[in-house]
């Protein structure tokens, strides 16, 4: 009697073509492949190795931000302050380097500052139970102000910046930011997919109340994901500063929205509990390929924004419609698995 209903649900699982499952696995990848094919056909120089490496380098900052943000969004939170953290940590790293602190230490300092900002976001969200949207809206503004205050509103140009290779250098023919991005994603993938901690992140986003009663220390997990997002933003900020060889108080303005777009494009649910880090990487690449491709095609900047907006809405719409199988399945079998 009880075994019957498990069989029934399994039968449903096998029955026919399940658009939702199929889209979850490969949908976003197909969008990417189609986009690359389209770009190669239209833009003559698109396929050249140096161009592809350039694209990879240009997306690395947003991709690193999005990787950290994926942790936050998986718990059902949001972090609007990562763009401002980019500015603060970049500024701190440059000021430190100019003051004579060795390059590796300056880089680490930038990341630590980012992580500290994340700690504030996380602690306010978890222990004071404040809405993360509001908390990070506040810190976004505060940290932007802090970046302006440190630099007195002017960029600090450091032409002999000790860690400028972090943004402009190559290792084995690959731009350093791309290598850093790869490392971040490898680590993030390992943490989310293979560790105890990763499962707890998913659990908090899936059902915080159940997670707590199952023995997950929800407040600690919540705090930690903002620290991770902050550290990633810190790294992105240091890379940005190295790339432009200066401390820019305006760095990273609006980056939080591109990063959120990449996470959502990658199929992570804003409600938390569902999503994959690999999806975020693909989402970042799609946004990057789209921007570069449109530039190569000489599409005016304003039109680029129009197209980008439509792509984001389209991708998220498919993601939402996939849970309504009757839109995609032929036949009358529209029984939902959770019915």
């Amino acid at each position, binding site marked *: 009697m009880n075994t019957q209903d498990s069989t029934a*649900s*399994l039968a449903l699982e096998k029955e026919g073509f399940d658009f939702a499952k199929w889209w979850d696995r490969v949908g976003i990848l197909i969008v990417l492949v189609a986009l690359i094919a389209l770009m190669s056909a239209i833009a003559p120089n698109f396929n050249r190795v140096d161009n592809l490496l350039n694209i990879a380098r240009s997306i690395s900052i947003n991709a690193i931000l999005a990787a950290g943000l994926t942790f936050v969004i998986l718990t059902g939170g949001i972090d609007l302050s990562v763009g401002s953290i980019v500015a603060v940590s970049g500024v701190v790293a440059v000021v430190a380097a100019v003051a004579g602190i060795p390059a590796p230490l300056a880089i680490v300092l930038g990341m630590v500052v980012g992580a500290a900002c994340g700690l504030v976001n996380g602690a306010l969200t978890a222990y004071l139970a404040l809405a993360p949207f509001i908390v990070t809206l506040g810190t976004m503004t505060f940290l932007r102000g802090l970046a302006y205050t440190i630099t007195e509103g002017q960029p600090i140009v450091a032409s002999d910046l000790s860690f400028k290779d972090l943004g402009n250098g190559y290792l084995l023919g690959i731009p350093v930011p791309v290598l850093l991005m790869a490392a971040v994603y490898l680590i993030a993938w390992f943490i989310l997919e293979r560790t105890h901690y990763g499962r707890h992140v*998913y659990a908090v986003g899936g059902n915080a109340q*159940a997670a707590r009663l199952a*023995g*997950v*220390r929800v407040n600690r997990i919540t705090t930690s994901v903002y620290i991770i997002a902050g550290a990633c933003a810190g790294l992105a900020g240091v890379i940005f500063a190295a790339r432009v060889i200066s401390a820019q108080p305006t760095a990273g303005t609006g980056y939080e929205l591109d990063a959120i777009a990449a996470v959502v494009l990658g199929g992570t649910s804003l409600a938390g509990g569902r999503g994959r880090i690999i999806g975020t990487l693909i989402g970042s690449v799609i946004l990057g390929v789209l921007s570069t491709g449109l530039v190569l095609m000489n599409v005016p900047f304003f039109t680029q924004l129009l197209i980008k907006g439509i792509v984001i809405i389209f991708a998220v719409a498919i993601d939402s419609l996939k849970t309504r199988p009757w839109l995609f399945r032929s036949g009358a079998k529209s029984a939902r698995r959770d019915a």
Partner: protein
Amino acid sequence: MTEPLLRLEGVTKRYGATLALTEVHFDLKAGEVHALMGENGAGKSTLMKILAGNVARDAGRIIMDGREIEIHSPRDATVHGIAIIHQELNTVPDMTVAENLALGQEPRTRFGLLDRHRMLADAREKLGRVHSNIDPRRPLGSLSVGMQQMVEIARAVSENARVLVLDEPTAALSRGEAQELYQIIEKMRRDGVGLVYISHRMEEVWQLADRITVFRDGTYVGTGLKDELSPSDVVGMMVGRSIDDLYHHEPRTPGKVVLEAEGLESDAVGPVDLQLRSGEVVCMAGLIGSGRTEVARLIFGADRRRAGTVRINGRESQPADPADAIRDGIAMVPEDRKVQGLFQDHSVENNIAISSLGKLTSGGVVRRAETRTAVLGQMKRMRLRSNAVDLPVKALSGGNQQKAVLARWLLRDSDIIILDEPTRGVDIGAKREIYEIIDALARSGKAILVISSDLPEAIGISDRLLVMRSGRIVQEMPSRNATEEDVMLHATGAGSRTVPTHTGVAS
């Protein structure tokens, strides 16, 4: 015999395959308080919803003043003079008392604007009719629950209600507020209103009611004059079932004390003392709201303790978080498995493994093959099919979902297991399986604490019963010779020698 004010004949209500009400009768005279009693699920609320026009009956007649009437909507109920005071108040807390009383029929000036003066005057008049001196300009939310209830009653009376149904009206009231309510009920009875009083509390029924009707499992059991009945008669009518072999288990021999709580107290419950022994199943019985879940949550560290200690195998356990309690060897299967127990979108494997990852990782990395083997082992023990392991847990039936939550704690292998309503919403087959697992766990030396509102189950599966009322354990008894009547007497307070006027929340 005079024609009653309201008469229900052969009312039947079906929800899908289950009969919520089967040809029940009920009648109400003007100027009487008629108590309607029964256990949870007896059909009291369904009958009330039919009277309120929220639910349509499938068969039967409703007769008022000798004429058959139809109630299709809450509006119809109002037109016929039937008013319901629900457990959850149906008011807007941010608006003033006067605004609430005028809701939907606000007086207007000749320019079509709100006539505030008349609204206030109307409100004073309406409150005066229930002899209340509440200031109608106060926001409703600033009043105590009891006073808010009074405003609701004033609204009902202002709509010329001749039948007033009160559903557990004192559940949220303090002793003083309840006394005020009794006085209002008394006044309304004298004014010739017919009152239907739904309550679990024996003592207040005995204070207020003229007649008592009992429902059980959706059927009419009987009606009697209060003066001709005793509390145990009524309890007997309410339970009236025998324990069948659904609960059968071989005798168990409890071992040493593993958990000892002393003076456990929160804002809602306590002080509570209790002991659990290894190899023993203890059931906490009591009415809904008597504080059983709260006690479990205090032990488990899910809510903050105000006072009291818990010792596990002699060592003090002071959990700040359930994670600490779990480390100390306690497990809890929560009451609402959908909201508190499961990650609906996550796989069965992840749902089962989540609490045991500490044992299944090295250096923070999950040993995946071992995890899968361990999960499959527990699924087999729970008779869950192994090919469900990767399905989202929401694809399982209610009984199988509950077994998945149980499997989580079997995998964790905690010494003390608390189960809050483990068989609610579970079919009879899965129930039997869950009882067998509980028995097997006790035999393997675990201490089991079960919270159950199903009396035959509570008595049948346990070795010892703790009966709770108003936040305290009022009676402890061995299950062997306990009867449902015994438990109900203590749970409702009817067992006390003198019938107290009202038992509020323990101060």
